[in-house]
């Protein structure tokens, strides 16, 4: 019976970083109500303590991650393969930056809960990557969603924040139900919830014609996860939610659900069968191809029409989901050196740095009484806040895909893998990607023009926020560094 004991111990060993994160979450939730009076008053500066505690928790998790080793996939509830290792590193790094962005977003009495929710979300992403079972996968996805609802409403409680929270809540539940529906069919077909068992059982059925149920399962699961990716036609919530959400939450929403969504999509669809009719991937590739093209076009074209910065960035986030879907559609194909998945992972990392950086600059410009919302609020930013204007320009250029930024390398990789993937479908995908990159340039350049060529109209926040400035610095460093030395990231991706 020592087998059972060692199985429990092995499972815990595989998720030590998440245990550290969730222990920090419990600590914060236990201590927070004792430090805040019943009337909601806290000692001034309490948010700094929560910020440092979150950073310590994340650092412990990062240390545990750094000493963890990739292990062969077993029969337990968790796995630690190359992908899980990479995603864990990525989410912990983005978590460190998000804690800094979130530092001053909530007042002292509520700061503890917001940071705790953020840490729980990071733990959820890690567990999505580490899940070895579709039930575990779903629970981990919910561990991202449920703290997100609280996180959306905690820092600010005005009407816009309430609208965005309720919208996200309703649609997120709907998407979870869709995903569960697909998963239940997968379970019904294969008789197991274990991922490796599902692969093996699908492989065993190769010789017979594929039942329609596999198609239904694949389509429903794609629909459920497309919500997380903000892929068209499940993107409708994005602009409203981003507009109403606090800046740190918008930064998190533009990146973290995409990471979890792509990993979950890979886990449930990209089965280990290289070819054959039963592969759910070959079945869903045409669907994903259309999703990628539509997502790119809808995101970019609607972003052209926006007058609110956060709405524009929400549609920009939609279009970037489309770019990343290109990498997913290409899949294992691609150039000799890199596959579509490699290009996707590279772009995902780069996108995290630039999108979190963009929202961090907005957080630095907003005050507790007034937030930057309309694009005209940024008029003449080069005169009022020159350093922030330069940083924001840099992030926007990277989102656009201009040379000397990491966004350029990322887009180039995606273009190359799509072009070389063989077949007309891939080449068309590459062409649409290039066309969209050109359309996207328009609205990013519009923001830059407002910052440099217009005179200041509205006053922007002038208070110094060191934590956010550190976050902006780190994002700039990552965006610049990954252009100069992309091989540093490639080495990590090679382990996947």
């Amino acid at each position: 019976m020592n087998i059972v004991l060692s199985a429990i111990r092995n499972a815990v060993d595989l998720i030590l970083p998440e245990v550290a994160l969730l222990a920090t979450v419990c600590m914060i939730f236990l201590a927070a109500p004792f430090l805040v009076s019943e009337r909601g008053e806290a000692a001034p500066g309490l948010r700094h303590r929560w910020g440092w505690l979150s950073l310590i928790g994340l650092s412990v998790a990062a240390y545990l991650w750094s000493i963890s080793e990739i292990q062969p996939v077993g029969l337990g509830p968790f796995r630690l393969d190359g992908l899980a290792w990479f995603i864990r590193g990525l989410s912990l790094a983005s978590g460190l930056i998000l804690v800094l962005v979130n530092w001053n977003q909530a007042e002292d009495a509520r700061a503890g809960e917001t940071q705790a929710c953020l840490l729980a979300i990071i733990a959820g992403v890690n567990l999505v990557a580490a899940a070895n079972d579709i039930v575990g996968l779903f629970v981990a996805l919910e561990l991202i969603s449920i703290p997100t609802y609280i996180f959306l409403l905690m820092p600010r409680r005005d009407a816009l924040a309430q609208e965005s929270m309720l919208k996200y809540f309703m649609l997120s539940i709907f998407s979870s139900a869709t995903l569960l529906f697909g998963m239940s069919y997968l379970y019904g077909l294969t008789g197991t919830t274990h991922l490796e068992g599902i692969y093996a059982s699908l492989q065993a059925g190769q010789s017979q014609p594929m039942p329609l149920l596999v198609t239904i399962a694949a389509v429903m699961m794609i629909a459920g996860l497309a919500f997380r990716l903000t892929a068209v036609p499940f993107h409708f919530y994005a602009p409203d939610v981003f507009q109403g959400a606090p800046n740190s939450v918008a930064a998190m929403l533009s990146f973290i659900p995409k990471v979890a969504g792509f990993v979950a999509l890979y886990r449930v669809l990209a089965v280990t069968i290289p070819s054959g009719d039963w592969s759910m991937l070959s079945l869903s590739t045409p669907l994903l191809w259309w999703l990628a093209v539509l997502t790119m076009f809808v995101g970019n074209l609607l972003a052209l029409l926006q007058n609110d910065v956060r709405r524009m960035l929400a549609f920009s986030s939609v279009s970037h989901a489309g770019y990343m879907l290109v990498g997913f559609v290409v899949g294992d194909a691609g150039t000799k050196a890199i596959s579509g998945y490699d290009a996707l992972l590279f772009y995902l990392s780069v996108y995290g740095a630039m999108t979190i950086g963009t929202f961090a600059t907005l957080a630095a410009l907003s005050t507790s009484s007034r937030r930057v919302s309309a694009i005209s609020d940024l008029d003449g930013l080069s005169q009022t806040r020159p350093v922030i204007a330069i940083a924001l320009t840099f992030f926007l250029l990277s989102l656009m895909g201009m040379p000397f930024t990491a966004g350029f390398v990322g887009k180039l990789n995606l273009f190359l893998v799509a072009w070389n993937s063989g077949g007309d479908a891939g080449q068309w995908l590459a062409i649409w990607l290039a066309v969209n990159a050109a359309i996207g340039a328009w609205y990013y350049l519009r923001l830059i023009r407002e910052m440099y060529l217009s005179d200041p109209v509205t006053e922007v926040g002038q208070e110094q926020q060191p934590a956010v400035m550190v976050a902006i610095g780190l994002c700039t460093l990552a965006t610049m560094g990954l252009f100069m030395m992309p091989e540093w990231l490639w080495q990590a991706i090679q382990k996947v």
Partner: protein
Amino acid sequence: MDAFHAILLYVVVLIGFAATNLILTHLLGPKKKTAVKQMPYESGMDPVGDARQPFDVKFYLVAILFLVFDVELLYLYPWAVSAYAPDGGLPPEIRSTVFGVMLVFMSTLAIAYVYAWRKGVFKWR
């Protein structure tokens, strides 16, 4: 078949008890017919009128807290029943580990309880 006689008897007693009580209250109970007492009872709500009337959010908080511990009990039952069963159950070597796992599970819920208590959920105000 003998085993089922007892159940049949039980069912008869059960129905008889309920019916007797209903009839007796109907016959013996005092009846003061006021307008409010004549209303159909619907959990304290006015049964006629707009269904979309707001009611206090405190009800939701209590309901959610109740659900948390209800579900906790749901998880505890199978373990409590099977772990120390006289015939079989969990092997003695792993009992203490599993007990530790259950303690971790309950302590996370206890943290939630402390949080709710400190936030004043139990104060009906």
